[in-house]
Structure formats: structure tokens, C-alpha cells
């Protein structure tokens, strides 16, 4: 049981290291760059 619980936790940690975070679909028009920019940002 110790080993099984350690392995399961280890797999999760490994997954966080390797899983990519999908980019917002800017090109598809679902999200515009304007929407992504913080509203308080001054150019």
C-alpha cells in the first residue's frame, strides 16, 4: 500500500512536468489579443 500510494503520487507529479498547457485559440478568433491584455495595461 505504501508503494502504491507513492507511485500514484509520483505519476501525478510526473504528469505536471510533462503535460503542456494548451495555448488560447487566438488564431481561431475565439479569444482576441485585446481580450488577453490586462485592462490596466498602458501601451
Amino acid at each position, binding site marked *: 500500500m505504501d508503494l502504491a500510494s507513492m507511485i*500514484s503520487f509520483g505519476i*501525478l507529479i510526473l*504528469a*505536471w512536468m510533462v503535460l*503542456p498547457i494548451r495555448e488560447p485559440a487566438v488564431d481561431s478568433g475565439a479569444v482576441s489579443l485585446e481580450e488577453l491584455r490586462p485592462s490596466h495595461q498602458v501601451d
Partner: protein
Amino acid sequence: MAEISGADTAWVMVATALVMLMTPAVGFFYGGLVRSKNVLSVIMQSLFILALISVQWVLWGYSLAFGPDRFGVIGGLDWFALHGVGLEPNPDYAPTIPHQAFMIFQAMFAVITPALITGAFAERKRFKAFVVFSLLWATVVYDPLAHWVWGAGGWLKALGALDFAGGTVVHISSGVSALVAALVLGPRLGAGREPMEPHDATMSVLGAVLLWFGWFGFNAGSALSASGLAVEAFVVTNTAAAMGALTWMTVSWAHRGRPSVLGAAAGAVAGLVAITPASGFVTIQASILIGLGAGIVCYFATQIRDRLRVDDALDVWGVHGVGGTWGALATGLFATLAVNPAGANGLVYGEPDLLWKQGVAAAVTWIYSALATWLILKVVDLTVGLRVAEREEVLGLDATQHGEAAYQP
């Protein structure tokens, strides 16, 4: 006269207050997930149930659930309006605290269970129908089930099925009933065609963490004593919640490409659901595996529900029905007498018998909850009418059922 323990009594009273907090927490968890035009109606359902079942419980609910046994299936009405339920301990249930302390602790379980179902019929059920349904469901489904599993003389208890804090009585019953309710009511207008995104994810996360907080009372309070067993239940509860959150977030990340905040919150609830029946019977290592399993099976249950186009609006079946079933079966796998001499050893400890009993208890709860809920819904539909009119659904239940708005423009 039995000896009352001040420490045990104090802990059970605190635990009762913790469990009480869980019902409005359900309202906030669900409230954030619905559209802004329905948030008040969802919160009202939890608030109203807290009041409604508190009175039902002291009048007849407690007596039906825990009163003197009738044929293993129901308690008698000997304790109607709490006659005979005083400050003397009842050795059948909790020998070191006043009987009324046990009663009010159990009241909070009776309160939260129908509140869990409200997520399935959110955004389309008439308030009057909800009132009648909740009262009938508490009386016809919850009270007998509580007697079968926890009542002195209850037949599932006599069979040897274990349910420390409500995996079958609370979670399978509410989850399965939610599925039936969603099927009978039908989907919301526009479901599957229009976006129905959560209107306030922050509210839902706050609700989820309040549930996590209250769940310490739910599980550790079920030890009914300020004892080592309560501490064990407390630790496994936190561990399973944590593993459920981590696992759901990871599985949804692998599946959908991002670590979801609402996914982590739902995963924590799934882990809490799954550890509930097991919490006084399993080791801390087992709780890691139970939380892991909950994060996986409940996530995929919600995906299957979505594919089947059943509009269980807030995934009560996926989280509570499936998570409760996994928890009941996991108790049959991982329970050990080393944690609780009053329990039993599970399959991992060489005794397959408990797993069989857990399967029977889960199956019976599924079947009874489904049939009784279907019947109640049909009765309510024929008498009061289940669903709001289309126009009311479009305008939102806050305005049409309660005449109030959650947010001012």
C-alpha cells in the same frame, strides 16, 4: 445512568455546526455554476432545505430513521416530535453523549442529502415542486435508507455492510436520485446548443472549500467521540480530498489541455465523497488510493454523462453517485480492523466477504433510490407540476419564482 463525556459532547456539537455549514456551501458551490439569472434560486434551495428538513427531522424524520426498529426496514413513530429523545445517552448509537446531541448531528446529514440533489434540476424546477419533492424524498428515501444502514436493527447494518459517514445513505442516494430527476425533468432549454458557462467560478471554489472544511465534521464527527478514531477519520478525509483535487485536475489537464480550477474543486469534492463511507475504517495510505480513484472515475463519469446528453446540470450523479459507489466498494477493498476493531477486514486484507456486502448495499441503494425518486417525481408532476413554463425558464428562476435579482445592473 450512562456516563456523559464532556469532550465527546463538545466535539459532536462542533461537528454538527461544521456539517450545518456544508448545506449553504452546497448552495454556493452550485450557485456559481449556474447562470446569473438562477443563482438565487439555487442558493434558496439549499437554505430552504436547511430549514425544512430541520423541522421534518425533529417531528418524524429522526424517529423513522433511528426509532425502535420495525422489521429491519423502518423506525417506529415512538419518538415522534422527539418524545423520549432526551439528554440521557442512547447506548445503541452513542453511549457517551446526550441522545439529543446524536439526533442533531444526524439532522445535518438529513438536511444536506436532498440539498445535493438540487444540482440536477437547477435552472428549471418549480419552487413549489421542489418543496413537495424534498419533503417526500426525505421521508420516503432518506429516512428508510438511514434506518437500513445505521438504525439499530436495520437490515443492511445487520448484514454487515459498513458506511462510516454516509457513502450509501447520503451520496449514492442523492447522486442516483439526481440522475433520475434529470431524466424525468428533461434538459434545460438550449442545453447542448447554447453556452451555459458558470456565472461565477470564484463562488463555486469558495463553496467547494467550505464543503472541504465542513467535511471534517461530517467524517471525523461520525466517530461520535473525541478519540483516536476521530483523528484517523480527520486525516484520511483531508488526504483523500487532496488526492481527488490533484487527480481530477491532472486528468482534465491531460484530456482538455489545461489544469482547470473548477476541476480541482470538483475533484476535492469527489475525493471527499469517496472517503466518506471508508473514513473510519481505512489507513491513510488507502485514502491516497481512494482519492486517486475518485478523481479518475468521477471525471470520466461526468464525461460519459455529457456524451449521453443527460442534463444533470451540475454533475451530481458523476460526483456523488459514482464517487459514493467507488467509496462504498473501496471500503470493501481497504477496510482493516487495525484502524477500527468495530469494522471488518476488506479484500486487501484477505477477506472478500466485506466487498460483497458493500456491493449489495450499494446496489440496493441505487435501485431503491431510483425507483422511489421516480415515483415521487411522477406524483409531484401530476399534482403540482415539476417544471416552470418556458417563458419563466428564459427569464430565469430568480425573477419568476422569487421576484428578486442577485445582482443589480
